[in-house]
């Protein structure tokens, strides 16, 4: 090693926090801008064109600034402390998810042994925040929205966890770095389609978990205004609702890229592709997942809450359970094939 920097544990922690606090908002802004633009072009329009000069790149900065200037209104009959706390409970998990995502072989904030477990656990904490927000707002629309969100997050947490379990079985590890290392061929392409089905289930579950269309009933504007966040305004609105939504979307795109598309590994194990650095691969794959999410939004109408529940419990969960059996059989009876892929 040509040079060496020694940092104390505290200094290292500070650096890590600084990196996360710089990267997450940037990613969110980029993804938010992409959402504006991709949707606009899918709908035969231009989208933002003026703020910032070049194709409206600064639209979200302008938007954010506008929200910062707005009055922070708390309804008179709201439960003030819970109302305020809810925002943090939604915002903090959205940032903490990024801790364990491996951007490159060594570019990772914390390589936990139970990385994927941590990831799934932390990403569902926000459900409590949403419930708190809906309950504390003293608004009937908020209450309906919160209950919808609660039911939906419970129903779709399961398929996601089970789909991730399939990946864990195939990789034989809970550490995200190990999972990526196991994918010289991404799990998506593995015969006999186990990875593909798990990927589809994961994508659908993610969209529901992110409450994005067509599974956006908890925040369905035409029905219940903005669901649990109807009474939020100004800064609380962006940090409790808008920012976590986009940040979570990027996080789930990154998780999907890590679990199924092979993270920072080249998409197929061909020599010359190794030249491209890992973080570029990771970014490309994340961008692809992100585009999937953005593409689905303007394409479909919204489902109804009971139809959504039926879809989760009757189709997705049985499918993933069968998938786990299939993965087990595959590992048990075709270990050689597994070896080849490694």
């Amino acid at each position, binding site marked *: 090693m040509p040079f060496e920097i020694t940092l104390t544990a505290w200094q290292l922690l500070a650096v890590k926090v600084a990196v996360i606090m710089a990267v997450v908002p940037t990613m969110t802004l980029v993804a938010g801008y992409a959402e504006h633009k991709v*949707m606009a072009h*899918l*709908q*035969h*329009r231009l989208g933002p064109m003026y703020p910032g000069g070049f194709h409206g790149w600064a639209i979200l900065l302008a938007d954010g600034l506008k929200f910062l200037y707005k009055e922070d209104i708390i309804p008179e*009959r*709201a*439960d003030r402390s819970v109302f305020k706390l809810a925002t943090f409970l939604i915002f903090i998990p959205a940032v903490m998810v990024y801790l364990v995502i491996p951007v490159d072989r060594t570019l990772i904030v914390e390589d936990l042994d139970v990385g994927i477990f941590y990831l799934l656990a932390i990403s569902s904490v926000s459900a409590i925040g949403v419930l708190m927000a809906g*309950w*504390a707002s*003293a608004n*009937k*629309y908020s*209450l*309906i929205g919160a209950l919808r969100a609660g039911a939906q997050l419970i129903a779709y947490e399961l398929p996601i966890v089970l789909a991730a379990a399939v990946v864990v079985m195939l990789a034989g590890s809970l550490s995200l770095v190990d999972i990526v290392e196991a994918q010289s061929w991404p799990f998506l392409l593995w015969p006999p389609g186990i990875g593909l089905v798990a990927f589809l289930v994961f994508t659908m579950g993610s969209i529901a978990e992110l409450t994005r*269309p*067509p599974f*956006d*009933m908890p925040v*369905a*504007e*035409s*029905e*219940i*205004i903005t669901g649990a966040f109807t009474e939020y305004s100004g800064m609380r609105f962006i940090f409790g609702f808008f920012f976590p939504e986009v940040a979570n979307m990027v996080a789930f795109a990154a998780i999907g890229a890590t679990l199924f598309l092979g993270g920072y590994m080249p998409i197929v194990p061909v020599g010359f592709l190794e030249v491209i650095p890992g973080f570029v691969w990771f970014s490309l794959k994340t961008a692809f997942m992100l585009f999937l999410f953005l593409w689905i*939004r*303007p*394409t*479909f*109408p*919204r*489902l*109804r*809450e*009971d*139809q959504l529940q039926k879809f989760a419990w009757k189709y997705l969960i049985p499918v993933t359970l069968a998938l786990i059996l299939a993965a087990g059989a595959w590992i048990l009876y075709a270990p050689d094939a597994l070896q080849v892929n490694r």
Partner: protein
Amino acid sequence: MSITDPRTTEQTPVHGPEEIAKIVAGGNLQTEQMVLNVGPQHPATHGVFRLLATIDGEMLVDAQPIIGYMHRGYEKLVEARDYRQITNLVSRMDWLSGINNELPLALALEKLMEIEVPERAQYLRVIMLEMNRILNHLMFFASFGAELGAITPTFYAFREREDIQFALEMATGGRMHFGYFRPGGLKEDVPRGFIDQALKGVRQVMARIDQYEDLLVGNEIFKQRTVNVGVLEKEVAFNYGVSGPIARGSDIDFDVRKDEPYLVYDRFDFDVCSAPNGDCFDRFWVLIHEVVESAKIVEQAIADLPAGPTLGKVPRVIQAPEGEVYVRTENPLGELGMYLVSDGDRRPYRLKIRTPSYNNVSALQHVLKGTLVADMIAVLGSFFFVLGDIDR
């Protein structure tokens, strides 16, 4: 609903597991009903429409439409205006189909005063009316999609609206309130280029209607949300006096243009679309297919358009003779009737207006009972009403 109600913590009896089991077994477990005010400010009501809904969970136990937030008293206002001013005023009732609103009064006066309307004016009227109908229907195509969470139809519809809108703008100078019909004919002849622009717009709509069907009608989620949702039975529709695309969606095959032709509608070949089930899907299906029929009428009318004057022999001062007359026309949203009573003055003695949306939304109460909150929005969206048309 009170969040920090002290009574709930103090007075709620604490049940042990056995007692809870007993309550559950006895079927006495109850959930509280909640009164939800949908509107007057709500994204799905397109204005100041209020629905007093009693909900049990997400199920609507009762729904009471409350109207009148936008009452502007047109029926009284017109008694103080002379006839030329009234045509402009009533176009503001249903702001999505302004030119359609101008017609009944012109027809009523022509009947009372026995004015002969030139052929060219009649054909041009039909062209304008049908183009306006297309605009109106595309608007509801857009908003119904938006209410079901599909955001793209809005932009598709507005793209197609623009060419037709521009044609109307060329002739009348207006985009919403045209003020183009006069008792006895039209304000003036259409300018050069109008016919080409109108044809262009109409043909574009006809060419793109398949895209619309792909986007919504053929979509599985859309079907799930609309088929057998909010069923309006034929008898109920009859009893409430429902008309227009909503009635035709409930298998009532009635269209004033066909059954009681006015202007020159009897010379064109077009179908009255109707569907048998009366659910949201059928209402929407009728709406979309009426666009095609309207486009057909416009094409035929343009092909047969005669030359000649556009205004009949109208006296300088419009003064209807004593008498009364009822005229009804097919507005985009249903049957628009005007009952004009004249005492021989320059202004009407009384003008009773029967607007389609008013009768249509009165059937909501019946349809909404027992639906889910999400379905309520679908039903509201599929009842194609304009607030100004309800309250006028």
